[in-house]
């Protein structure tokens, strides 16, 4: 069985702060990390590998620096990795990203594809389902547990707003996973050695057999028109006096609003 995991290197948005004077992002010293959801996808793949002996290949599409993220997954236990990288891929939206990933995955071969629920930089949650559509395979999103897996089928729990669904699918299938699914393992010593030594295979636009008008900025239906700082709409009302007087005034206002 072949498992392909899609990971993305992202800025640690927990560390991103906004400069109140210029209203821009302060990115200085913000570390790049593997998208947190994707480490859960890697772990889910490794758990299936532990059970079935499947081969786990981790891929990422990104600039050359994204190699570091791939090495981390080798340290966790991935068998193989691919860096999908080409100048032509720059500026890709989710459509063009999914298209490139689909072309690469189709070359690699797959029975199960695992993605994170969403990437924390864009938060779109679109790439997984779009890749499945391109490959013409079913997908199940928001997987919080893999109940059973065989050569032909899989049964999982899918998180919904009001609980969860137990869903079965034939293979091949693509799953996107939420954090509840597992706790990612730490790299082993042996893994760390392997990660250091590993030669990272790169795939460019020719290697994946993609058409140039479908990748990068050119292949992207959406465009970013502009970015700006979230504005604070306020219709502020002043409460004055001692704390008790302020609370008094507030409770009166609440009374008007709610008819206490």
């Amino acid at each position, binding site marked *: 069985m072949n498992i392909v995991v899609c990971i993305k290197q992202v800025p640690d*948005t*927990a560390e*991103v702060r*906004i400069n109140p004077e210029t209203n*821009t*992002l302060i*990115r200085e010293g*913000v570390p790049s990390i593997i998208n947190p959801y994707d480490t859960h996808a890697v772990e889910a793949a490794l758990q299936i590998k532990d059970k079935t002996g499947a081969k786990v290949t981790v891929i990422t599409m990104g600039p*050359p620096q994204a190699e570091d993220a791939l090495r981390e997954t080798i340290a966790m236990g991935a068998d193989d990795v691919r860096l999908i990288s080409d100048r032509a891929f*720059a*500026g890709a939206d*989710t*459509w063009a990203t999914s298209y490139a990933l689909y072309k690469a995955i189709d070359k690699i071969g797959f029975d199960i594809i695992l993605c994170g629920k969403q990437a924390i*930089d*864009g*938060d*779109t*949650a*679109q790439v*997984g*389902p*779009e890749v499945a559509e*391109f490959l013409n*395979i079913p*997908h199940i*999103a*928001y997987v919080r547990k893999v109940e059973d897996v065989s050569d032909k089928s899989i049964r999982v729990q899918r*998180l*919904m*707003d*009001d609980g*969860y*669904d*137990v869903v*079965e*699918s034939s293979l091949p*299938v693509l799953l996107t996973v939420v954090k509840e699914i597992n706790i990612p393992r730490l790299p082993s010593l042996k893994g760390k050695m392997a990660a250091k030594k590993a030669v990272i295979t790169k795939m460019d636009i020719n290697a994946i057999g993609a058409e140039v*008008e479908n990748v990068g900025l050119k292949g992207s*239906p*959406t*465009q*970013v*028109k502009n*970015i*700006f*700082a*979230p504005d604070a*709409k*306020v219709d502020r009302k002043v*409460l004055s006096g001692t*704390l*008790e007087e*302020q*609370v*008094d005034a507030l*409770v009166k206002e609440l*009374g008007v*609003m*709610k008819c*206490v």
Partner: protein
Amino acid sequence: MRIEVRSEKCVGCQVCIDSCPYTAIVMKDDKAFINEYCQFCRACVSVCPEGAIIEIAEEGDKVKPADISDYKGVWVFAEQRHGYIASVAFELLGVGRKLADARKTTLSAVLFGSSENEAKELVKWGADRVYFCGDAIFKDFNDEPCSELLSRLISEHKPEIVLAGATPIGRSFIPRVAAKLKTGLTADCTSLEIDAETGNLLQVRPAFGGNIMATILCPNNRPQIATVRPRVMKRGEYVSDRSGEIIKVESGNLLCRTKVVETVTEESSCKVNLQEAEVIVSGGRGLGDAKGFKLLEELAGLLDGTLGSSRAAVDEGWIAYSHQVGQTGKTVCPKIYIACGISGAVQHLVGMSSSDVIIAINKNQEAPIFNVATYGIVGDLYDVVPMMIKKLKEAKA
């Protein structure tokens, strides 16, 4: 297209570096240099005080627009669960009506599963037309049949805009529709408007964990598809005798390789029902411990409200995740939101800043929560909240 720094004009002020959300600009020999992380968002172009950063057109830039002039009308995908239409559908009809009016076109809803009676509700909430397919295949949610039938209907009728809820259902299958039709999809929009000049849909959404907002366009492909989180848009007007057309759709042979074998509804998430609450009393790390929520519960009780929380309080284990408000929790839009001991990080604000009235209680007057608060009280919540409880009780007596 390329973004390039004219090094002869660059004075090395580094303003562009701060502006770049992708860390794509670095200093080289005291001049700015744009590297391969560039996503062409143009943020740097507009901030450069020297006009040293420019956009350069390249061969092959002009993507030939698909023939988009035949596309007309605004569509709303009305999702249902267990037969009932989700409330987000009515909110989408609210914003959809405005968009349709701005484009001088019609508003349609699409309903798969559920019943014709529910389809009629969509008309009362503002739809001129409802495409309805009540086939059994839609009883449970499966991605493939939903995306296949919706794509087919879109290809046949060519709407210019399609809106869906950013719910586990909408976020799961709508991307397949966008992939199939080769068109753009913008997730989690917080504002949707028509650009008066071009007629394009201006889609505003948070990015980078809510730290910035981005306006997204889909100029050359149709339909323009967007998802919207529940409770972000206001519902339209309910008119019980509004008439509209219900068009029954045959599903035909739809491929479905997944099967829902069981559906489990979990109690806890239902009890909280944050998204329907009119009053929410929320607590953050400032509570200091789990017992603080007992106090807030008493306040919430007096106001017929429910309890919310920041992520910090959930991470501390003081309250269940189902109470979390914000980027990774729920988006809420109550009449009154009372934030106690919450600093007001952007990730929290994106989940509650559209509440009608926001009351902030925080002992640090610099806390960003005060920037969005209608009423702010600078003080210890353990003084303020008990005082409020006492006075509310007096007012009730």
